[in-house]
């Protein structure tokens, strides 16, 4: 295998608080210029992982490598990594310009260079009019931009972002997601991004790292994570899914709801209990129940703006189905599913 | 940021030397006898505590307790209405009233007490005034009444301010809700305002009782040595008699008295809160 260049490498990273392992033997390799997102429910150890990379928490065990060199003993102020904090942590007694200039002033750069770089950064962030403003007088979105500008102006190799959009309202959030992505592409630095919002993770990242209870559940591209969740937790967390207990009869044959379905998965063995994931939008409804692989009765219909969300019940379970067509309650319908839309996962649970 | 903790270490050492060790010494002296300058040859003894139980000293302790309790009660009775009036005044008047309540506290404690000396002494201002109007003279100084008056005067603001703080924070909506539900003013006071103000009352009581029970200035100046309090005894032992053992055991007893009363007060505070919750559930 060709030796790839990793900018950050986590090896067996472990951290406990009060005897509880909050981050448990994490291994992760991050490539240069990658947009990596740590995704997981609140309290799963994302922030702690990020803080260890930033140098604000000392790992109990394990190593952090930066460009192949051990980073553990380096204090935060000597790491070529900058952070955008969850609540921005702007310096309240300084104006916008001074906040952004802070890192450069510490490096004792010449005055005119500082001015030039800060001005350029403020222009890039659409903040050029706000240099003299007090940070308290800015809106949430503007403060957010100042926090990013303050970090980026130092031209770090890696930028850590801890739920940077968490405090913004939905519309602003969407806008900032796009801006952040553009920015990452244009400045070309590695982003390690933390969020508990799966949609945000899937739309922005090159690589998504799904975490739960201090463990990494899955690492992959957004498509991998969405289409091929490795376990029930990931499937559940990534989106509304139908998760079905099933039996893998042999390669490409899985049985549930009293019949055998074709699928594309192999290598599970024969007659093995597995979990099957079918996305709500992958179930096609047909009006003639006899023409469906699965039959059931519509028990609830909710209009969701773009599609209808319907619950369809048969004798085994209830399916959630998304469709642009509406079938009234009480209707008998059939459902079909394509073999490649049946995702088979190892049954290991996640608790 | 954990490294910032080392900033607390020098002060920890300082506290150990100047707060903890002195208290240990006092405790040690209270349970020993012998030459105080020679720690090595001090002998364990409960003699100073036995001495405290002699009637004359017991009387002093009881006296201190009674006077402190009385002054606390007077402060509460006088101060609660003041706190309530101030809390209900409109904002402009309120800040002026507060200011006038606080200004006397800016005067040195000794001078405030001294001022009462010049008013209450046999040939003082008060008696001249009474004479002028042809009224009988008042012989209250030196004596218990004068000491009590001095305590009330000095500590009244300590009662008013915490009660005021709590009262001014009570949400007006509670009162409106109460009257909306048909409670009259008296009922609203006893059922809503009073229970909600208990934390202020408790800290007021503590802030008055504590200095009152340990004072020796007020009793020294206004009591003329006729009604010594536990504070006077401690002063005497350390400054004039040189009996540190006895003085130390008196200090320990004073601290225990205060600890007990603080424990009782915090108990009342807690019970009050539970009571509130109980009402809320009911």
């Amino acid at each position, binding site marked *: 295998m060709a030796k790839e260049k990793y900018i950050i490498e986590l090896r067996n990273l472990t951290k406990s608080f009060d005897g509880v392992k909050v981050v448990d033997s994490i291994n992760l390799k991050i490539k240069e210029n990658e947009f990596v997102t740590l995704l997981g429910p609140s309290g799963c150890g994302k922030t702690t992982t990020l803080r260890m990379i930033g140098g604000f928490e000392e790992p109990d065990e394990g190593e952090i490598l930066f460009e192949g060199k051990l980073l553990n003993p380096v204090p935060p102020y000597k790491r070529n990594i900058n952070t955008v904090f969850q609540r921005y942590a702007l310096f309240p007694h300084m104006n916008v310009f001074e906040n952004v200039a802070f890192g450069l002033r510490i490096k004792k750069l010449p005055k005119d260079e500082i001015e030039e770089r800060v001005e350029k950064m403020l222009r890039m962030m659409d903040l050029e009019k706000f240099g003299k403003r007090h940070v308290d007088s800015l809106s949430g979105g503007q403060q957010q931009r100042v926090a990013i500008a303050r970090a980026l102006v130092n031209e770090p190799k890696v930028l850590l972002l801890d739920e940077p959009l968490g405090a913004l309202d939905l519309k602003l959030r969407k806008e900032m997601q796009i801006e952040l992505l553009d920015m990452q592409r244009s400045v070309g630095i590695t982003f390690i991004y933390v969020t508990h919002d799966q949609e945000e993770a899937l739309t922005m990242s090159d690589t998504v790292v799904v975490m739960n209870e201090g463990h990494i559940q899955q690492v992959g591209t957004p498509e991998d994570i969405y289409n091929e969740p490795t376990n029930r937790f990931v499937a559940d967390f990534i989106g509304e899914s139908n998760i079905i207990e099933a039996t893998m009869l042999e390669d490409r044959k899985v049985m549930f709801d009293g019949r055998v379905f074709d699928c594309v998965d192999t290598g599970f063995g024969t007659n093995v209990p597995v979990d099957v994931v079918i996305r709500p939008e992958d179930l096609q409804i047909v009006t003639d129940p006899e023409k469906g692989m699965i039959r059931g009765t519509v028990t609830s219909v909710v209009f969701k703006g773009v599609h209808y969300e319907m619950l369809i019940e048969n004798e085994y379970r209830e399916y959630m189905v998304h469709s642009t067509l509406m079938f009234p309650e009480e209707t008998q319908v059939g459902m079909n599913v394509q073999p490649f839309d049946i995702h088979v996962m190892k049954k290991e649970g996640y608790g | 940021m954990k490294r910032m903790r080392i900033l607390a270490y020098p002060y920890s050492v300082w506290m150990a030397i100047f707060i903890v060790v002195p208290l240990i010494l006092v405790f040690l002296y209270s349970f020993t006898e012998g030459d105080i300058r020679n720690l090595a040859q001090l002998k364990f003894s409960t003699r100073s505590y036995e001495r405290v139980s002699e009637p004359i000293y017991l009387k002093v302790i009881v006296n201190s307790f009674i006077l402190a309790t009385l002054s606390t009660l007077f402060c509460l009775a006088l101060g609660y209405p003041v706190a309530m009036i101030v809390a209900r005044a409109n904002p402009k008047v309120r800040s002026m009233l507060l200011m006038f309540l606080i200004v*006397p506290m800016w005067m040195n404690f000794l001078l405030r007490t001294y001022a009462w000396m010049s008013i209450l002494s046999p040939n003082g201002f008060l008696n001249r005034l009474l004479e002028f109007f042809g009224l009988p003279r008042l012989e209250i100084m030196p004596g218990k009444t004068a000491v009590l008056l001095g305590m009330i005067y000095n500590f009244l603001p300590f009662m008013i301010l915490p009660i005021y703080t709590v009262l001014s924070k009570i949400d007006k909506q509670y009162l409106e809700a109460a009257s909306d539900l048909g409670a009259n003013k008296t009922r609203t006071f006893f059922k809503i305002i009073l229970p909600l103000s208990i934390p202020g009352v408790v800290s007021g009581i503590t802030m008055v009782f504590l200095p009152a029970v340990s004072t020796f200035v007020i009793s020294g100046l206004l009591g003329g040595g006729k009604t010594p309090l536990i504070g006077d005894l401690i002063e005497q032992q350390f400054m004039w008699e040189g009996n540190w053992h006895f003085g130390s055991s008196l200090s320990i007893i004073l601290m225990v008295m205060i600890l007990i009363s603080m424990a009782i007060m915090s108990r009342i505070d807690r019970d009050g809160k539970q009571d509130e919750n109980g009402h809320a559930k009911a």
Partner: protein
Amino acid sequence: MKKLAVRIYMGLIFLFLYAPIIVLIVFSFNKTKSRGQWAGFTLDWYAQLFKDRLITEALYYTVTIAILATVISTIVGTIAAIGIHYMRGFGKNLLLNINNIPVLNPDIVTGVALMTLFISAGMRLGFMTMLIAHVLFCIPYVILAVLPKLRQLNRHIAEAAMDLGATPSYALRKIILPEIRPGIISGALMAFTMSIDDFVISFFTAGNEVSNLSIVVYSMARRGVKPTINALSTLMFLAVVILLLIINKKSGEGEELLL
């Protein structure tokens, strides 16, 4: 009717609170030594006050100790508060509780306890012991004033500074200190007033050679009432009122500082 009752009640309370002060001030200008009678206006007592070596010396010690104690306790207290703020769990609680002892313990116990320590350690009571005592009881107030400001501080703000390359000591000086300055100032003011005003602890730790104004007043008052004390009271009261008015004007957070 009720309004009238309220007015009369508040009037009586204020009469009670102010009568002694007014009497003191008025009689500081009275010609005779007697406290009851008005015998004409004089400034003699003020003149005598400034000739009295005991009093001028005590004034010198009072102010010197107050300034030194304020400076020392503000510096030590602020540093200690920052340290305590970043501690956790048992250690933090322990330090906070010990720190509270001088605030909660009666002054007389603090005074005699310190006195036993100084004498047992073979120290001579005097300026130095009194200064230590004042620093001791001032620091807790500084810490109690600074800690809330630290708690209000964004937890990550110092980390953000270090993230941008600031060493811990740079972050402390340029980020934390400016943020908690109001707490430090009110702590210093509290320390200064506590020190200026203290009698009991000074009384036990100053020994025979050094006195502050409170000690002088106490010993003079014990021997009987002296009109020079009236003059002294008037001046001290005036000084405090002026000082606090200036402070309140400057800071604009009147109520907070008054208390």
